[in-house]
Every structure is written in structure tokens, then in C-alpha cells.
């Protein structure tokens, strides 16, 4: 059975939801989400160290989406806003879980999968070395991404990156990334 966006989103938004959004990922939206989440975390009285980590992971996750999501999705039979993405933050026991979701062209999957698998094998010190290497040796891409986002997310969260690719059709997969902080 192929991927069902509605079902996926409703399953994701279960439990103690801090924020759930689906639609266009724009610069203004990122501002609004950051502001809203910051307020909620303050109200929830989360420890300031944890709050900063969540905020950092959230900034990188949203900007990763912003820089990499595709403008339009040909052949996807859904009513999608341009630059469509999903963000859900839930509180699950001790953890805050930040999940992003977006359609990814089948051609990009291998690259993404290899990158995440590689990051997940690295220790704290190895992640630090990788971060420093990329920081010092790679130019910023025209999109503004520097290839550092996922490494930074792994460093700050201190946890493995959980991901899935759900096949939608021959050309597209839905990429789900969950970070526990």
C-alpha cells in the first residue's frame, strides 16, 4: 500500500503535542514557529539547557526543510501547498521529539540515507571532528545550506537520528526524520 499522508500526519500528532504544522515552509513561518515554541517551553518551565538544545535542533530542522524542500511535486496526487513540509513536536516522557516530514525525489534518497547512517555511527568526539572538518573545508551552497545541519542536530541532541522513507510512487518518497532531545 502506498503512503497515506493524512494517516501519517494524524498518527504523528498523537500524544502530548506541543506543535503540529503542515503546509508551506517559509521564512515567516519559521519565525512564527520559533516564537511560539519558545513561549511554550518557557511556560512548560523546561530547564534552560534543554530549552536551548530544543531551540537549536528546531532551527536546524526547519532551515533544512526550508533549504531542501522542493517547490512543486509533480505526480503527487495530494493538494499540497508549495514548499510543502510537516513539523510536529511532541513531549514523550522525558524527551521532546521533533519530527519533520517532506517529499523527496527518489534520486536523493541514497545520498540522504548514507549521510544519516554515517552520522549515526559516529561518537560524540567523531561528530565534533566531522563538524569542524566541514566547517573549515566546505563552502556554503547557493541554497545557504552548508552540509552541517544534520551533524549539528546529532551533536546537540546527543541521540541517533531516526528516519524512514515511505514510498509514495516511482519518483517520490516521503522522508520522515525524528530527533529526540
Amino acid at each position, binding site marked *: 500500500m502506498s503512503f497515506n499522508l493524512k494517516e501519517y500526519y494524524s498518527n504523528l500528532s498523537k500524544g502530548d503535542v506541543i506543535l503540529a504544522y503542515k503546509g508551506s515552509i517559509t*521564512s515567516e513561518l*519559521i*519565525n512564527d514557529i*520559533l*516564537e511560539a515554541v519558545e513561549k511554550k517551553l518557557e511556560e512548560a518551565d523546561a530547564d*534552560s*539547557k534543554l530549552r*536551548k*538544545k530544543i*531551540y*537549536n535542533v528546531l*532551527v*536546524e530542522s526547519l*532551515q533544512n526543510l*526550508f*533549504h531542501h524542500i522542493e517547490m512543486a511535486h509533480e505526480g503527487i496526487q495530494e493538494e499540497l501547498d508549495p514548499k510543502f513540509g510537516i513539523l510536529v513536536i511532541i513531549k514523550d516522557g522525558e524527551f521532546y521529539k521533533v519530527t519533520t516530514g517532506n517529499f523527496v525525489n527518489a534520486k536523493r534518497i541514497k545520498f540522504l540515507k548514507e549521510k544519516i547512517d554515517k552520522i549515526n555511527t559516529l561518537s560524540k568526539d567523531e561528530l*565534533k571532528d566531522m*563538524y*569542524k572538518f566541514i*566547517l*573549515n573545508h566546505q*563552502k*556554503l551552497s547557493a541554497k*545557504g*545550506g*552548508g552540509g*552541517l*545541519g544534520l*551533524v*549539528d542536530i546529532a*551533536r*546537540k541532541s546527543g541521540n541517533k537520528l531516526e528516519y524512514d522513507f515511505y514510498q509514495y510512487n516511482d519518483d517520490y518518497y516521503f522522508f520522515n526524520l525524528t530527533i529526540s532531545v
Partner: protein
Amino acid sequence: MEPINIESTPKTPSIKFIQEESVIEIKGRSIPENSIEFYKPLVDWLEEYARDPLKKTVVNIQLEYFNTSSSKCILDVFKKLEAIHKSKHDVAINWYYEEDDEDMLEAGEDYESIIRIPFKMIEIVD
């Protein structure tokens, strides 16, 4: 030369040059989507400043958050400062971080290990 003076926004830090104290100050949050565009005026200003710098330049960096896109631009800023330091002018970087913010301390140490300028890590205690 004209001192640089940029006001902060929710996504970008303030940047100031205080000539009488020989201090460049970067303060706030640095999380713009397009960091190259934001940092270009500072990088250009430093290039100009490097032609005839003060005998000593102190750089105070007090960032609450910065994104990975800014991290590369901040490195570019440090590289400009490193060039000034190499030309036998004193440059010192004060890297401020909030109490217990180990991530920000570590970020400062990452730069310190890449850039050949003396760094001082300063914890801000409430």
C-alpha cells in the same frame, strides 16, 4: 573609516564597532536563512579595516544561538581577523556564553582550534 553599526533583529545579532574602546561587538541571535547576505557588510567592513587597523582590536562575541549557516560566516569573520593578527596587530577574541551552556562553550572551542588568535572563554553568570 565609518564605524559599522547594525541593529539586531529576532534572527540576526547587533554588530557594533566602538572605536574609543577598539572593540567590535557581535551580540544576540544569529539564525537567518541567508547568512551570507547578513554577514557580507561585516566581512566587507573588516576587509577595509584590515588596511589600517588599530594597534589592538578586541572582539566580543556574545551569541545566544547561531545556526550552522551562520557558523561558516562567523568563521569567515574570524579569518579576516586572523589576517589582521598575522600582520602584527593585536587581536583578541572574547567568546561569551551563558552559564552552563556547554554547547556554546564547545562552539567557541571549535573556533579556537581552527583560528590562530587568542580566545578567551567568558561565562556569563546571572
